[in-house]
């Protein structure tokens, strides 16, 4: 099976986005050259972007310049760790207002310290505690940043 070239795929995605932008601009109201409407810039930027994406697409198809396959950038990479960290941050954000900044942050940090580049329990717990306390001290107590206290009203 032929491996998909990275530029082919990314330019097709960019082309689709450009098409959507141009369509949205057209649907809004183009106005006239002497009185441009809300969609004027969107429409023309979308068209320009579509032209540029087509240029990248053609370049990738005729093979001008360096090309690499879509999946090659993930070889020898720890991309699973990346997705894992992002997933942890999504869960943290989802629970932030319910459980509050202090609890969610402490748990997030323990899990990050313990699982991404595994540390001992002592380092993980102490690191999480000190970082949470320092962040709360600086941002909430000193700078007056409003961070959620959650249902337990901690912090």
């Amino acid at each position, binding site marked *: 099976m032929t491996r998909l070239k990275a530029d082919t795929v990314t330019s097709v995605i960019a082309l689709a986005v450009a098409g959507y932008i141009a369509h949205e601009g057209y649907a809004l109201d183009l106005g006239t050259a002497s009185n*441009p409407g809300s969609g004027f810039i969107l429409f023309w930027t979308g068209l320009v972007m579509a032209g540029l994406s087509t240029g990248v697409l053609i370049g990738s198809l005729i093979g001008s310049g360096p090309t690499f396959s879509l999946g090659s950038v993930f070889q020898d990479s720890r991309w699973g760790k990346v997705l894992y960290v992002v997933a942890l941050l999504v869960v943290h954000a989802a629970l932030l207002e319910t459980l509050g900044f202090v609890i969610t942050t402490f748990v997030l940090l323990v899990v990050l310290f313990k699982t991404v580049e595994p540390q001992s329990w002592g380092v993980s717990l102490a690191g999480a505690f000190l970082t949470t306390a320092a962040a709360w001290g600086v941002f909430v107590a000193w700078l*007056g940043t409003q961070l959620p206290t959650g249902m337990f009203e901690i912090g």
Partner: protein
Amino acid sequence: MDVFSSLWLGLGVAFQPINLMFCFAGVFIGTLIGVLPGIGPVAAMSLLLPITFNITPEAAIIMLSGIYYGSMYGGSTTAILVNIPGEAASVITCLDGYQMARQGRAGPALGMAAMGSFIAGTLAVIGLMFLAPTLAMFAVKFGPAEYFSLMVLGLTILVWLSQGSILKALIMACLGVVLGLVGIDSITALPRLTFDKMQLIDGLGLVPIVMGLFGIAEILVNIEQKLDRQIFEANVKGIMPTKKDWQQSAGPIARGSVLGFFLGILPGGGAVIASFLSYALERKLSKTPERFGKGAIEGVAGPETANNAAAGAGFIPLLTLGIPPNVVMALLLGAFIVHGVQPGPLLMIQQPTLFWGVVASMYIGNVMLLVLNMPLIGLWVQLLKVPYKILFPMILLFCVIGAYSVSNQVFDIYLMLGFGILGWLMKKYGYEPAPLVLAFVLGPMLENNLRKSLILSQGDFMFFLERPISATCLILAVLLLVSPLLPMFNQKRRELATDEG
């Protein structure tokens, strides 16, 4: 009011205890993030932007400016001791700085970097002080066509200097313009690309986008690859350069200051390009170019001077024209707007205390940096020994706090994470974030000035070419975009190509 009376007024503002404190905080944090690889001035400034909401505009801008020029100082420490640039403008310092460290001359390298940075930083502020009022008087005559064309030129230069494909950089710039237009249209009040989401009515936030593309993406890249840092273990002694060092460095410092200053003013230019060009210039002028790359002190003095001069000069287009020449200044423009201040030709008339207070604070900040850097180098060395696996959860946490605290919305954290993944993928597939961010900030201004110009000219596009400044900017932009088609220019572009982030 003449320049010196204005400076006196500014010193009065800058010496207020609260402003002194924020100036110190700015340069200290700037040095810190300059020292630490993996977080640059853009991410640090966007992180701290929300916490400036509760302070005066003067204190906020003084602190954020301090972070920028402070990071230029700090970046050299990591480059010299660890051979990893703390931020992009110190990439070139690695070549000779690290070699000097290996030869037991880390002290003079660090000392010369700090002294050169101080001299250039101070000269840049003097240049800013004298050039800004003249430029502002000139800029008052600018109409929407000139502003539009100047912004187009700025974006084009940034795109031209991007690594890799110009087409991809232009795609990113287009995307940035579109993202900048999300929300209510200020003229017709029609919602654009809001997907019926209330959170998007006011548009996308600059902080979540910048933190995602520059902060989170950088951390994700680092998590993906195991970082193996070679820390320079020997004690750093004898920071003061010798008489011979000074003799060898005097020329590079003088030339670096001038070169950096003028490159810093140019839209799309910045500290990174200045440092690279300074290195190339010094190597070309040297009678012993073979020493470069093997521990020549000129290879540290020139680039470190140039990047600081450029950092100072970068404030000129922002403060006098209201146009940010690079991503850092785009963020600073965001800070001005958040505080209800519009930078531009009228800033020094309408807000003299703010304008001159910020300028004066840069003098003070440069002195603080010199005092901070020379004795605290030992502390920075210790800090470099903190493993990244301990640091990254803390940096992630600061990003989350920064994104949330802008408008106390969890939505902004999701937005930041989305742009973080996008930035991570963009790095992999050769799409650069800098044109996107600058275009995001300039997008609404571009649209506004284009629409005004077209209304004024009754739809005549020749209007842009009939006005000399506007025509010059547009012709330059077109020439830059066409130049990569010529092999000679394309080679030059690739040599200069840098990642401003």
